[in-house]
């Protein structure tokens, strides 16, 4: 199959993730959408790696996974502390500060 199709898939996944971040209201779901975007990046890296015939992209995909894992640790910790103090993970409730 033409590798370019995988790029279209990566772009589609990235767009779904970005749209999810904008539309959804639950912090956990938002965070999952961000992870979807990162995985779309991985797919793009691996596809380009195949296209160019060098391994850089595949190695970068590993780095991205590690970074995403670190981000999960920090992100879930923050979201959970907020959930415990407010009993809500909705980002609309996080509105103590307004213009």
């Amino acid at each position, binding site marked *: 199959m033409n590798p370019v199709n995988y790029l279209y898939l990566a772009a589609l996944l990235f767009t779904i993730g970005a749209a999810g971040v904008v539309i959804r209201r639950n912090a956990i779901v938002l965070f999952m959408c961000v992870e979807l975007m990162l995985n779309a990046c991985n797919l793009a890296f691996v596809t380009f790696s195949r296209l160019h015939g060098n391994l850089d992209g595949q190695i970068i995909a590993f780095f991205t996974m590690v970074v995403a894992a670190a981000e999960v640790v920090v992100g879930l910790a*923050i979201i959970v*502390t907020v959930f415990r103090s407010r009993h809500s993970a909705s980002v609309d409730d996080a509105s103590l*500060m307004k*213009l």
Partner: protein
Amino acid sequence: MTHAATVHSLWTTAAAAPDKIPSPDIEYGQLSPTLIVLGAAIVGVLIEAFLPRRQRYVAQLFVSVVALAAAFAAVIGLAAGDYGTSKARVAAMGAIAVDGPALFLQGTILLVALVAVFTFAERRLDPVVHGNRVDSFAAQAAAVPGGDAEKAAVKAGFTTTEVFPLVLFAVGGMLVFPSANDLLTLFVALEVFSLPLYILCALARRHRALSQEAAVKYFLLGAFSSAFLLFGIALLYGYAGTVAYSGIADVVDGQVRNVTPALAGTMGNDALLLIGGAMVLMGLLFKIGAVPFHMWTPDVYQGAPTPVTGFMAAATKVAAFGALLRLLYVVLPGLRWDWRPVMWGVAIVTMLGGAIVAVTQTDVKRLLAYSSIAHAGFILAGVIATTPEGISSVLFYLAAYSFVTLGAFAVVTLVRDAGGEATHLSKWAGLGRRSPLVAAVFAVFLLAFAGIPLTSGFAGKFAVFKAAADGGAGALVVIGVISSAVAAFFYIRVIVLMFFSEPRTDGPSVAVPSPLTSSAIAIGVAVTLVLGVAPQYFLDLASQAGVFVR
């Protein structure tokens, strides 16, 4: 050949004997500033694990200060060894540049971090709780605000000494960020300095709900923007077949030597280059806090513990502008006719947006946040110049601005009432009559923000606007001066409020700090005045440092 082998050979080939993998060549001496800071951060984690609680504070403070000072000495040593000028090179297998701008910005970040650590360690501002001196950070960050666990932690005198290793990790990432010489290093450095900052934002002792909310906003928007940055990196990698800055620059300029068929296909695809470049820029402009990627700035600056806000506002901006400069001047100079109009637009809306919205603010920290947005716009004007003067003026502005910011936020920690810091502007009325010294110091910082002569703000703004005008961005300078005038209005308004209005009877008191915060503020004032009165030496230093290695 059997049937199975025939089919198999359709998608496999006999593996060639693997070549020996060359062992990487790491220049430890040239990377020593970063290595010292990250090593000290790991020592800090070990201190948290093995030392009893009582001894951690002193040990952590000692390790942090020594490490930052040693790393700064290492930067000076490298600069003295001409690594900033004639011996500029690319270290760590092409991943990290050791050159003038990198060393200048690393030195600035380290000094800023050193002063910021003083404000982190301050323990005399909050009243003594259960016989324990406390700092600005939560007794136990995991405890629910107002819950039993928190009360027990406060009573037991717990403190979050983890902030010191977190700061060191953040500084380590910030040191790499402006010197990253390939896009992967750029991304990893971005995350290494962002993740500790997200945590630090959530650790305030007072107003914990506000602090946690700031952390959630910063984290979600930060992760969102770094995903954009990463997709941009993927597209640039697809365009050029490499993530090395010089490699991409060669492809952009059409000077690549051996063009593979795949590269020939992707090279002609400008959509990859333009969209990829735009997305990487987006990620960097988010960290800089430029309009329209600034939404997080006021909330995070307001909610985060004030020492963290000061550190973040100063050091993040230095690191992110360094990375932006390198990206635009090393990777995408061949594309400047495409990015300059975009950056023009961003600079204009950033300068005007920050200055105009700041006029309506009633909270000191939010006011300073919007002022930092406006300043990001002024610095962008220097970035747009695309001349060597542009680079050096931006370097100088960053050094000047970061110390003013740090000092201003350190003063904000001093003005307190029963609920902690009194950040509402109405409470600052008449502060100049009660505490003339503190008000005068804050006035100096505000005048520097406004760019009044004899302060570092004036020297910086003059350098940046002059570079922009010489670089053919005269209209931008006019808009910059107009928004400076708008910004001066609200800085002066705060000064008038402090000195020429009646003090409120229920007004805040000014806490007497320990030598730590005092010296942080004193350093801020000293740098502001020295860079304002005698800027020439530092301008020369910046212009010597203003050449990127490629």
